[in-house]
């Protein structure tokens, strides 16, 4: 067992867990924060996306013990215009990928603001966050319901 103090959504949580417990399982199973979803547990779907010090990560690929001292934000700690925009643009159907999409989008908007390029940057889009830019940057978040159009529209609306 390992003692770890996780800071999640502004609150401290001391935990006594096995060192191999993922951040995702720590959130869902130990802290009861089930808003973060598990779709594959192997880094392939993005359903488990959370923010660690503002950066988006796949929490299923992160060990909880490595995140002591980091500021973790899960969907439960997010209060962002994206959420209402997702509803307006119907950026989901079943809702299972949605927490991950929203957390990922929050992180992505910050990355873009900082000038971080993507694979399509420079192909005529300039600094504007075009649809192609959003699609490229959000491609780590799968949506099997196929709500991609609504998600992109929601992000575009909020990005302005």
């Amino acid at each position, binding site marked *: 067992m390992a003692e770890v103090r996780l800071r999640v959504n502004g609150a401290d949580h001391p935990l006594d867990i*096995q060192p*191999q*417990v993922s951040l995702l*399982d720590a959130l*869902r*199973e130990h802290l009861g*924060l*089930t*808003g*973060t*979803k*598990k*779709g*594959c*547990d*192997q*880094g*392939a*779907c993005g*359903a488990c996306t959370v923010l660690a010090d503002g950066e988006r990560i796949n929490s299923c690929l992160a060990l909880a013990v490595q995140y002591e001292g980091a500021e973790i934000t*899960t*969907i*439960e700690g*997010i209060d962002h215009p994206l*959420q*209402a925009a*997702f*509803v*307006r643009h*119907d950026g*989901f*159907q*079943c*809702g*299972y*990928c*949605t*927490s991950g999409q*929203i957390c990922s989008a929050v992180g992505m908007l910050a990355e873009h603001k900082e000038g971080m390029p993507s694979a399509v940057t420079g192909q005529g889009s300039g600094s504007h966050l075009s*649809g192609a830019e*959003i*699609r*490229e940057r*959000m*491609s*780590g*978040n*799968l*949506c*099997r*319901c*196929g*709500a*991609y*159009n*609504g*998600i*992109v529209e929601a992000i575009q609306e909020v990005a302005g």
Partner: protein
Amino acid sequence: MTQTLPETTTTRESVVGKPVDRVDGTAKTTGEARFTAEFSHPDLTHAALVHATVSRGRITAIDTSAASAVPGVVTVLTHHNAPALKSPRKVTPTDLSTMASGTSVNYLNTDEVHWDGQPIAVVVAESALAAREAAALVRVTYETAESTVDFTAEEPAAKPQKNNLVMQGSAKKGDAEAAFTAAPVKVDRRFTTPPLHHNAIEPHATLAVWDGDRLTVHDATQSIDWLRSHLALRFGIPTRSVRVIAPFVGGGFGGKGFIWAGTILTALAARATGRPVRLVLTRESVYRTVGGRTPSTQRVALGARTDGTLTSLIHTSVTRLGRVGGTPEAVTSQSKHLYAAENILVRQNLVELDLVSNAAMRAPGEAIGTFALEASIDELAYELGMDPIELRMHNEPERNPIDGKQFARRHLREAYRVGAERFGWADRTPEPRSMRDGRWLVGMGVASAFHPSMLFVANVVVRLSVDGTVLVHCGLQEMGMGSATVQAQVAADALGVPVESVRVEYGDSTLPMAPGAGGSMQTASVANSLLAACEKLERKLTKLGRSPQESPAAVLAREGLPSLEVSVGSDTRLGRMAGQLRFMSKFLMDQRRWMKAALGAHFCEVRVDPDTGEVRVSRWTASFDVGRVLNAKTATSQLKGGIVMGIGMALAEQTLIDPRNGRIMNPSLAEYHVPVHADIPPIDITYLDEPDPTMPLGLVGIGEVSITGVAGAIANAIHHATGKRIRDLPITLDKLL
């Protein structure tokens, strides 16, 4: 619940058809919506599955000592120590829930192995981590038997599928073979499609709790009612002793329609240990224990006169079943209805393999059948030197081609006209490789979409309260279709109350029985009963002397009544059976009278890299004839969702099965490629909104139609771009080089 003051008047605008936001939007965007794996219970234990590693044989020894020694392990269940389970029953038409079983295997009650991946042991532990670790330590010895697992090798030995009441294995009109031989213009092609998996992002999960002989399960299911009956049957307890709870389901697409090993084994493990058990399948376990879409080989032969008139349409298919179960896919279904061919022959053939049963996946049959048919029509158009839309319109039938039945509604011509205009089809130059955008070869293709429409029995209770709120009780399931939202719209219009005052409670077997979310029939079926219930309520209000200007709540207030309740259908055993028989007979009569279907026209533009063969879908317009649309927002999303899945099927998706041992080689989302954001352009959806006169409110189901035709449209566009006809899905870049 939204509290609303009683209104005094009832004149209000209709909300049916409006883009009403989903009622569960906030829950799903804040992480509040709870899915199956997120329910807990005091004293909860966790389970993990052990899968067989041979495709056929028997277990001769199973060593669980190392697994049992893992700290936290409660028990390791195998066929040696698992409680007895009753075998799944044979399918009977009077009780459709007998169709529910994913396979015929009596898990952990047999030493026989029927497919590579069959669960043969379950570990129960204090944590999921311990269960997972212990499962890896179970050592199994087998006596293997010979198995057949290779679809391509077995496919020539396929046997004809028999006809039954609900599904035809073959049908014909005239002499299609002779007409084909005599036809001056013809194409005769062979197509293949690979096995596919649903890959809902939520993995299957179950939480089972026994209280004496009463069983409660939370389950990621598309079929609350079937699951309840099936569990009662397997555990030998009355149906009323089983409760199934499934408020939110994270996508299904057919994969959660039947009852698979994980669900049964969770309940069994809870029975054996006397403790609540939760099992969340790993992604790999989903692939190994839940069936997917069958692969197919298909032949389409078309004969035509030089003016484009189809004289012969032949469509045959081979698909597979598991030796332990599965349902035939209606691969040739659309070929009986889409074209006015003078002679038609369709025939479906089957092989049985030592693999897990196949399972219905979004538009089972039509999704892959339209690929072959619509690609062949395109080939014929090129043979004839005709525009592919013109060829289709030339053969657009007045009556159902195979049997001359009347169409309940058919506006495919109009759908094509509207779609072509929005898409800009007129700008297309027909010659292959004639359109370019810089380096990219540009291609445009069309295809028709088709899915039959059905209704089934649904029970509802509606309660109107004096505060003006309306409560609808129905055990329907919501996996993203927006069911609760659209039914609230239906009730609001029917009763003349604001949509915000209607609340729909669903997702629980204690509520009146509803059909499963499958076959694109839940919405219409529930709406049908809901409308009947609202009419009943109106009649009661009329009896209470409701004046035209009086709101429903005002009547209750005046009469001093706290609420008024009506129900449609009965949930007693007899009531359910009667309901099922009534619907069966109505269904058959209806089928004899009308041909009902959802229809559409897909227009797609692709860009192909001439050097690498990379295909990008750059534009999409789809124009649908799907009766009356209940909610512009959720319907558009659902129609788009099918197209997205179809794009995956056309260009990337395939489950790879080792032909030597039947093992799935890519059981993960990293190796089975579903479409990602970057693969999907903005999709333009339009629908005619012409009500179907034979359906409640004029609506037909829309959950499946949009995936049909997608792969055909893409294959046709790729041919237009490159001059190459690829008849084997998925159209990966190696096939274009």
